[in-house]
């Protein structure tokens, strides 16, 4: 059945057919026909953000916490350019987001019209794919293709630029089942010979390790289940990147903590000394590898990834397996079981003894204080008091993000939303808006710094308008903590522009937005303040005034390998060499 309708109606119809229930957006001249159609229906809720960047981060939060694509609707020109940071963030973290932008009418394209920008040109390098729709007849097909591209293979953001005349014109709608989606078909099953070769290595490995990443979570809940089964059955230690936290539970027996620049000592030492590294849905990011030529020098490496360009990009691996994590793990488990479930038990026991020795170093230890709130302590108390809840955590970017990753335990996938690849300050607050929209009954907490929080704090108004009881947990050290830490290590403690002067009173700010706020500086009152935040039925800003000069350890200084970690302020003298200083 073919149906005639306007382009604007087609957009809403296609979104409904894709099962979209929420759109994050901001209206403007070039999308008014679509907004008119949104006005005329009740199936799709529209969340009016206060800035288009917030719309994309909210859609990312929605997508990460549900596994479904997030949808954004913004206008042409500034609407589209404001979305660019969010698109780049979603690209680097492989988050499925569909952004619809308005455009000046086709006959005006190229005339420098009002609010005209070359949106597909600007967003070409920060989307997985994008389209400029020049014909209403093609619109339905393109929207369905866009959802397909965003959600299959390695997920990512896509953008559809829709000129205003295309929205007004009438055309034939292509239903979802007729859309030309077959052209993009990434390979899901891994090569059986390669998987068998990996199983053979697993049977004899003396010091194996699983190194997992966000790809496990992107592959879906099935992948996390299979990973848990595989890890439990083999007894191999498992570490994960920031993006992969929760795929294997933090309380799991084989869990040895996050790895990387601010990862745990035991995880990094185990990566350095292992003889078999099984990388699953992780991409050897520079936060993970440290110095590349000294990265895990003695190990045999296997790498499972759905994106062939991630394999051998940074680190050469011995067994590349291109495929979807869940598909590959299923085959891996089947083959390993069929061959008799063999592991090198004796060697594994020795390996665990060694790991326990590293663990005994207690790398997260910090000096406690009765007079000031230590940021690590604040996170620990937040963790303790919120653990039993149906809880989702978002973070901003900086020290607080790393402390959250170190001190909070994630038991399930899709529970931590954080900007890993791009490191976007201002991500967490709008992301928490998106998460809360998807999970109205859950407790959604944004662990923030006072500087990151200010980057998109206008979204508090969105939370208040839509009655989203998001909790903003601000570790306020009146500093750009991570910048300051690097200035300590690299620039002789000259804190160029890294302090926050003229900070707003966050309690009054909360009141100005029409929500509740509280400040706490006395460690004795911390628990009570956290409880008030968690119990409050509405958006809440908790301004936790913490120790100002705390640095985040352990740390692999830039240009150093995994086994040369800094454990605390005492060990930082001359830690970064001249070659490391150029790295970020």
């Amino acid at each position, binding site marked *: 059945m073919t149906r005639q309708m306007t382009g604007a109606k087609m957009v809403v119809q296609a979104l409904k057919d894709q099962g979209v229930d929420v759109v994050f957006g901001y209206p403007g001249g070039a999308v008014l026909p679509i907004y008119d159609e949104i006005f005329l229906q009740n199936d799709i809720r529209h969340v009016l953000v206060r800035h288009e960047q917030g719309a994309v981060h909210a859609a990312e939060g929605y997508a990460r916490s549900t596994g479904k694509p997030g949808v954004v609707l913004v206008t042409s020109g500034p609407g589209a350019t404001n979305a660019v940071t969010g698109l780049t963030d979603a690209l680097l973290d492989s988050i499925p987001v569909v952004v619809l932008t308005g455009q000046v009418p086709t006959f005006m394209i190229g005339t420098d019209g009002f609010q005209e920008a070359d949106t*597909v*040109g600007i967003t*070409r*390098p920060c989307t*997985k*794919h*994008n389209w*400029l729709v020049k014909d209403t007849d093609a619109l339905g097909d393109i929207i369905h293709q866009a959802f397909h*591209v965003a959600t299959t293979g390695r997920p990512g953001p896509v953008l559809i630029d829709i000129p205003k005349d295309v929205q007004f014109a009438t055309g034939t709608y292509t239903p979802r089942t007729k859309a030309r989606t077959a*052209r*993009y078909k990434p390979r899901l099953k891994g090569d059986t010979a390669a998987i068998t070769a990996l199983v053979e290595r697993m049977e004899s490995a003396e010091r194996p390790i699983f190194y997992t990443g966000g790809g496990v979570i992107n592959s879906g809940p099935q992948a996390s289940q299979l990973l848990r089964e595989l890890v439990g059955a083999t007894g191999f230690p498992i570490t994960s990147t920031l993006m992969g936290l929760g795929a294997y539970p933090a309380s799991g027996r084989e869990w040895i903590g996050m790895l990387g620049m601010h990862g745990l000592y035991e995880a990094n030492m185990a990566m350095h000394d292992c003889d078999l590294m099984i990388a699953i849905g992780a991409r050897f990011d520079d936060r993970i590898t440290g110095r590349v030529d000294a990265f895990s020098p003695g190990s045999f490496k296997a790498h499972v990834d759905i*994106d*062939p*360009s991630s*394999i*051998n*990009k940074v680190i*050469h691996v011995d067994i590349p397996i291109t495929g979807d994590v869940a598909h590959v793990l299923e085959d891996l488990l089947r083959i390993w079981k069929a061959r008799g479930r063999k592991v090198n038990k004796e060697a594994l026991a020795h390996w665990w003894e060694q790991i326990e020795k590293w663990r005994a170093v207690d790398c997260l230890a910090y000096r406690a204080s009765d007079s000031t709130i230590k940021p690590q302590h604040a996170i620990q108390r937040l963790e303790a008091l919120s653990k039993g809840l149906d809880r989702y955590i978002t973070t901003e970017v900086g020290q607080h993000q790393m402390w959250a990753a170190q001190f909070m335990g994630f038991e399930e996938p899709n529970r931590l939303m954080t900007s890993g690849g791009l490191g976007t300050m201002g991500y967490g607050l709008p992301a928490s808006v998106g998460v809360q929209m998807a999970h109205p009954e859950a407790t959604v907490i944004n662990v923030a710094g006072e500087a990151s929080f200010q980057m998109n704090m206008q979204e508090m108004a969105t939370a208040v308008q839509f009655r989203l009881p998001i909790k903003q947990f601000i570790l306020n050290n009146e500093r750009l903590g991570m910048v300051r830490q690097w200035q300590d290590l690299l620039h002789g403690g000259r804190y160029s522009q890294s302090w926050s002067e003229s900070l707003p009173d966050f309690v009054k700010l909360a009141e100005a937005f029409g929500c509740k706020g509280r400040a706490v500086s006395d460690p004795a009152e911390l628990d009570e303040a956290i409880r008030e935040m968690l119990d409050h039925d509405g958006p809440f800003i908790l301004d936790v005034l913490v120790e100002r000069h705390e640095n985040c350890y352990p740390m692999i200084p830039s240009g150093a390998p995994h086994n040369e970690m800094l454990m605390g302020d005492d060990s930082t003298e001359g830690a970064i060499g001249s070659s490391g200083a150029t790295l970020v």
Partner: protein
Amino acid sequence: MSALRLKKGTSSKSAYNLRDPHAEGLESHTLAVIVDNEAGVLARVIGLFSGRGYNIDSLTVAEIDHLGHQSRITIVTTGTPAVIEQIKAQLGRIVPVHEVHDLTVEGRAVERELALLKVAGTGEKRVEALRLADIFRANVVDSTLESFTFEITGTPEKIDAFAELMRPLGLSEIARTGVAALPRSDMSTDG
């Protein structure tokens, strides 16, 4: 031709060379990329090379299947083996890219480029230009009393050599198409 010690292709002069041309183990590869002939597809390919710092020595593109909306892009690039592999993987990731063939690896390929050269001169130089053009099997496609425009087809090296010889004879303008390449069939003999 080797006596002229010319660099292969036009790589040394390309504005798209972003990586160190003296890095060790550099290889030149010819890639054939089959793409949907849709708006922006060439920009995606070029943007990939500039954005990730890969080299483009030569690039040609044209529609090859009008009904199927397909184009063929031929790219000559230089890089270390790891970079070449990465380029192929990154190209394969672009949504409207259907196939990526490394003609350098898949077996010997026929590579041809077409060039137009305008050579201005009189007297003996003019006669010499014509004589050399004959040796190189270049055709005269336009002529005035003061100039010839030659059309020459061949490998980039052949065109480099011809251009070098024409320089002292009054070469005033040159237009090159870049390399088009096809893999040789199994049965074909060198031709």
